[in-house]
């Protein structure tokens, strides 16, 4: 079952610009996570935000969570060509088992 849906599906920006990706989900959650995937590789965890948190920062990453709207956003500031990757949100459903439900991802291209 697909819980998270990222928006946009693809995003192309210039180096130095900020990139914003959004994720919407359907059910109540325990936490929401963002992952990054370089082409043809496994996913790498970026950040986890719990349902009682509204905002979290990690380096150039800023994640917000709005549980009333069932949505989250990932902001990458001052993007670099090396940020080119696909970004996925994933949720732990409240009361669910310990398996994440992933969205289909946003493909980000940062042009030098």
């Amino acid at each position: 079952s697909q819980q998270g849906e990222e928006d946009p599906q693809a995003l192309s920006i210039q180096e130095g610009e900020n990139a914003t990706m959004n994720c919407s989900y359907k059910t109540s959650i325990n936490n929401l996570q963002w992952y990054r995937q370089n082409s043809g590789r496994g996913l790498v965890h970026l950040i986890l935000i719990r349902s009682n948190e509204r905002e979290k920062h990690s380096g150039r990453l800023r994640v917000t969570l709005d549980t009333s709207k069932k949505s989250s956003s990932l902001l990458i500031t001052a993007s670099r060509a090396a940020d080119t990757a696909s970004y996925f949100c994933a949720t732990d459903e409240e009361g669910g088992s310990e398996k994440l439900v992933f969205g289909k991802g946003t493909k980000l291209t940062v042009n030098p």
Partner: protein
Amino acid sequence: DVKVTQSSRYLVKRTGEKVFLECVQDMDHENMFWYRQDPGLGLRLIYFSYDVKMKEKGDIPEGYSVSREKKERFSLILESASTNQTSMYLCASRRGYNEQFFGPGTRLTVL
């Protein structure tokens, strides 16, 4: 450095062959997962295991089986490979509701 390893990065098999994909994690995680990833479809869960010898079907278990005889190892088995099982296969492990660690992936081609 925590690690999830997969037995092959690339694999080519023929239709009807039995295929084993192996995954090993060194973090003593109780939960392990197998996903397949196809363009436009995102990650789809095939099976997951929450303990040794315990397993649960994911969203697309048809045509697959799994084995978890030891905590660190989770195997995905394609009993009789078909061309529609050509895909990228990703293994992952996790403790509780924490972050999930992924292997590098196995790109399987079935001819």
